[in-house]
């Protein structure tokens, strides 16, 4: 586990906006029901063109598990930390709920979880991946938009996908070193 570097590669061209990933995440991680409580999301991009020549794309996203996470450097109590595979986590026992990390995250990946009174975020389903599983949102996706894997393993599906395809990350200019890769 120590020597792993987890990442998710997304091919949004395959996304049909079915929202299976968002519901799967909520059930798997007991994320409270509510408009503002979600660990992942699917954005309906605005319509392109005008009737009858239209186009639209859908982009799923979640925490980038940044290698240089601002949410981590701003956390006064070190409640936010980086664990195995580069996963960024929040320790509920240390979090004071100052919400500074919510402001620091450039991706809107964090939210306040009233169920347990602390800040919540995507953990790449650490409870699953540490026992050899794959994240719920990855597994359930009908069209398999997301691929999860270890970038330190050159033969992993993610490594191969990135080697073979052009890709981008979100807001690279901020130097957060995200580990969500979008194929283009």
């Amino acid at each position, binding site marked *: 586990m120590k020597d792993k570097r987890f990442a998710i590669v997304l091919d949004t061209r*395959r996304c*049909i*906006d*079915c*929202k*299976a990933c*968002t*519901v*799967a995440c*909520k*059930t*798997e991680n*007991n*994320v*409270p*029901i*509510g*408009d503002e409580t979600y660990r992942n999301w699917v954005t309906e991009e605005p*319509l392109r063109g*005008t*009737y*009858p020549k*239209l*186009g*639209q*794309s*859908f982009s799923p996203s979640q925490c980038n598990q940044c290698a240089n996470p601002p949410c981590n450097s701003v956390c006064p109590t070190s409640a936010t930390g980086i664990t195995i595979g580069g996963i960024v986590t929040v320790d509920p026992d240390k979090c004071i709920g100052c919400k500074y990390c919510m402001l620091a995250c450039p991706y809107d990946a964090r939210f306040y979880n*009233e*169920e*347990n*009174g602390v800040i919540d975020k995507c953990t790449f389903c650490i409870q699953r991946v540490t026992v050899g599983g794959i994240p*719920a949102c990855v*597994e*359930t*996706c*009908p*069209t*398999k938009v997301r691929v999860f894997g270890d970038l330190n393993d050159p033969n992993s599906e993610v490594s191969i996908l990135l080697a073979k395809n052009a890709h981008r990350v979100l807001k690279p200019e901020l130097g957060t070193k995200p580990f969500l890769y979008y194929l283009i």
Partner: protein
Amino acid sequence: MARLIDKKLSRRRFLGTSSCVLAVAAVGSQTTVLKALAESGEVTTSTGDGTKDVFTACGMCVNKCGVIARVRNGRIHKLDPNPDYIKSRGMLCARGNAGVKVVYDPDRLKYPLIRVGKRGEGKWRRASWEEALDLVATKMTEIADKYTRAGVMFASTEGTFQEHFFLQLAECFGSTNTVRHPTLCLSSNIQGFSATYGTFPTPDVLNSDYIIMAGANRSEALITPDSIDQLKGDGGRRKLVYLDPRFTKTAAKADEWFPIKPGTDMAFVLAMLNVIVSEGLYAKEFVEKMTVGFDMLPPHVKKYTPEWAAKECEIPAQDIRRIAREFANAAPKAVFYPGRRSSFATDDVQLRRAMAILNAVVGNWDTEGGLVPNSHIPLQKHAYLAPWYDDIPLRIDDGSAVFLSEKDGSWVAMRDRIIAGKPYPVKGMMIYKQNVVMSVPNRTKTLKMMDQMDFICTIDIAMSDTAWYSDVVLPEATYLERQDPLESIGGILPVVAFRQPCIAPLFESKPNLWIMQNLAKRLGSEIAETFDFTIDEYIHHQVSKNPKILHDLKTTGVHYLKVEPTYGLTKGKRLRTKTGKIEIYSENYAKNGLDPLPVYTRHEDVPANKFRLLVGRNAYFTHGTTSNNAYLHELMAENTLWLNSQSASKMGLRDGQSVKVKSNVGEGTLKLEVTDKIRPDCVYMAHGFGVLSKGQSLVYGRGACDAALIEDKLEPISGNVAMHQTFVEISPA
């Protein structure tokens, strides 16, 4: 802090568990409601063995995807897709994932209920199973004595794997009046294709290079594996042409989208035939060998030129011509997708015939990437001897359609005759897993029909609008709490699925078999005897010829024979048509006074200042059913009326304002959604809102009900309903 959380919890606990079915419950996260239910003693915190993974099948829609239920400490924690389940390619959609909420839903039916107020008033009293079943049996017998045994109708829909127990009861009770979903759904589709091929084949979407989908929204109306395969394609050579008056999520994924004028698909298909035939692009020797009556086709389609069709369907002639050529060139690895729900227009059977013929002439029959007849994995049937009764009349809707299914009937024809009381009275209604009030167009009529019933009993898992208008409501255990029989699911890669209980049934809910058996007991020993078996005996009988099936199901959650399609099984064999061949020209239709070749008929145009109301699904709901599921409710809390932005500005209507929608049969009020995603002459609203039942605490009072607006026209060949010929006025509300 823990104390505080508890406080927050207790607040929800109180709301979450008020044993009254109609409690307007504030639903917290899954765990919260669960804890709540548990701590109030309404859920035994540990049911059966605590922690296990259970193979089962999703019960949220027709597809029955493979599920592995992760049970933790006696609670269903998560539903994961079963990767081995080839039909669903190891996926679960939003609804499938939301299944946990079906079990741990404060709104779910918990106990047998007997109506105390007026019908639809929502006043109930909790009853014991004994009392409830006694009442049902008495009422059924009363009606049988007063009228005939056909005086009790049985309405049901597939899906639970236990429907045939219900139909068995109907048959053994002696009623000919069973009515099922196909005449709200795909009966005209099955009729049109079967008349041509002798069967309803499956398109080999995965391996097809060229797919035309007309009125089949596979990115939202999920059909496994098509919804998944439509995006795969072979090395990117795949082309998807999509015809839909709405810019759906399938349109967003398609290579080409044409906002076709509703009800004119046949013009498009006939024009394609015209091009393919006149330019000699059809599969000559295939047509020679495999079909009959091709020679009648060229003269028939001569007048259906692309130029003519362009005027009808509003798709440019050159595009029709081009698509026809591309399609023929890609053949046989090309399909004109048959579609699923075909309750479209009053000549829908002929539309599906045209589609079938188009596929036939390019010779894509029973080959890779074409139309492939389904294979099935045989299971042993449970034979029983239904009691004999004299003078049971024929189905009340007998003769209402040319080819009427004995078992399925015709919903709207039947309803009309019941209301008229002709030729005989039907005064009792048994309903299983069907939400007739929401699903059968023209709600007013449905309620009228129910009004004149002496007795209505609904077996459901939720307080559906139908249950709401019943006299007795019986709670079935949900699909995650039941042992269901094995179900053989046909297809290009056929599978056998089953369901095992993940937890013991909560509250007093019972599996349908138990309900049927205990009802049968009360209806007489003759009927009871036909149910003289346990579910295990039943299952073992199903696999008596091949025990491996059950073994596979228990160890992998699915049984299948092959992972690679085998094509051409029908080559050289007789098809199940009269002539044994693909019938381009149908003698059988001619004999029945029907057009032997599909003739285009122009449907009524949208009257001035009106709009055509479109019907269609979204990926979050199953029909009128799942809109009250907390996880899905947050994806769409209420429905809106789609209106094209040009039309909106013409009428001076604003996005988000609330509007009144009025058809010839009903009206509703909902918020306006101004969008370019729809033709200027159409409007659309999602199904499953504007519910009447206060037992659906999340959606009650939200949005409008399409079933209240849609007119109930009849497709006379199959008895299917035609849902796409309703025009509405809209005005600011």
